[in-house]
């Protein structure tokens, strides 16, 4: 063991927020700083969304993404969706330009909106029809609403983000009842929990994400490199699964 760490496999971070939130300054609030932070840990690419979109304005947040992603091929844009028709129209326009490989649900709890089909049904139907995967934060949307609502969209691929030890009792049942769900691992710190998930579901349904800047980029990546899993499984979790979700 050494006092330093850098990934030894290719890494594609599935969960990075960029820009400043209305109430919180990012530690990397200019486009040049994020690649430096990624490089320090050996992160080659990152799926990035604008944190403005989580709560204040998905549409303005999405418009601001290009400043970051057009300058840097390592940053893949992820567009945030609200429940209004303007948000869906914007996503359709971006999709016509061929730049939408994934969509992220906004923070429904902070917006005080239930994640139900009579509010989000048009979005979910469109994503299902276009084969676009949806990222949903377990921190920001109640798990019961996620399971109940997604049951009506069996073809939709979803990535559940930010599972935590407080979700312990729910994660495996959610993975069973949502067979198209992938689990992003940024906050999943249950002891030997990821090794158990690999044994039960296979590494193919797990994604490395940092949840940066809510969470530091390095610790979970370090932990993944010290699990009792095969090198092939590590490569799936760190990059290959995300590539499959976005591009297959």
């Amino acid at each position, binding site marked *: 063991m050494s006092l330093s760490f850098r990934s030894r496999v290719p890494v594609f971070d599935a969960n990075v927020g960029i820009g400043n939130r209305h109430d919180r300054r990012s530690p990397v609030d200019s486009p040049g700083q994020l690649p430096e*932070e990624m490089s320090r840990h050996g992160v080659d690419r990152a799926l990035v969304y604008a944190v403005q979109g989580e709560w204040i304005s998905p549409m303005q947040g999405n418009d601001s993404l290009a400043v970051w992603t057009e300058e840097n091929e390592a940053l893949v844009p992820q567009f945030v969706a609200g429940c209004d028709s303007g948000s869906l129209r914007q996503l359709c326009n971006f999709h016509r330009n061929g730049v939408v490989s994934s969509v992220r649900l906004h923070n429904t709890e902070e917006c005080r909106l239930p994640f139900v089909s009579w509010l989000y049904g048009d979005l979910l139907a469109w994503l299902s029809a276009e084969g676009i995967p949806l990222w949903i934060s377990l921190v920001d949307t109640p798990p019961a609403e996620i399971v109940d609502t997604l049951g009506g969209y069996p073809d939709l691929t979803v990535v559940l983000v930010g599972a935590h030890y407080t979700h312990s009792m729910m994660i495996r049942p959610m993975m069973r009842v949502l067979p198209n769900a992938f689990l992003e691992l940024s906050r999943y710190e249950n002891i*030997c929990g990821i090794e158990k998930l690999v044994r039960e579901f296979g590494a193919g349904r797990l994604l490395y994400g940092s949840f940066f800047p809510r969470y530091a980029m*390095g610790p979970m990546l370090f932990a993944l490199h010290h699990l009792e899993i095969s090198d092939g499984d590590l490569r799936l979790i760190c990059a290959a699964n995300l590539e499959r979700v976005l591009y297959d």
Partner: protein
Amino acid sequence: MIDGREVIDFHGHVGRWDIFEMSDDTDEILHAMDAVGIDRCCLFNIFHPDGATGNDQTAAFVSRYPERFIGFAYVSPLMSEFMVPELERAIDELGFLAIKIYPPYSRWQLNDPVWNPVYQFADDRGLAIISHTGAEETCWPVYVEDIAGCYPNANFVIAHAGNSEPYRSQAIRAAQRFSNVYVETCSTFREPGVIERLVAEAGADRVIFGSDVPLMDPRTQLGKIITARIGDCEKRLVLGENAKRLLRL
């Protein structure tokens, strides 16, 4: 061992917490420790207010691998009549090396006189006390400033370093004001720059690595230290040297 130095985890639990799937499975704990070079882990059981029930479980757990685990004594003012006698038993008979308190499982703030017998015991013996801290009203780190100066022979370890703001800043200020105050690193709040700030503002000789095992996997929590932008000398202090000094190992 990491880089040839012993690594000590200052914050671990004995007992079960079923809704979080936390169980003190020795094999799992050792598996996770061994994977990243953690040599020893300090353990306590906070689920029994009489102290003795949990301390006996801790002693039994430690006895299976005494070279890997260190017991800390837990007592609670919910059953205040047992506090000092149980501390004497746990330290003198069970061989525990420090004290754990958990104010959220009582109704008393960390600076309430009800805790004074515990602090006096630690002061008399020159022991460390690790207390849970965070947003809960009973355990804001600012309260440590009211007690640390009164018990100069005791050492106060602020678990989770306050967890989040404004409590993290309170923890740092307490460490800056009192030489017998330390901040411990385990936390589910893993924002960028926290370890760097603790080291820069509290001092590398006052920051102690902890993981909260088995509530959390120590590999991620250790990763916070390894991936932080701090020097190797500072990492060695945080990962073990400070704990060894505090526990007189």
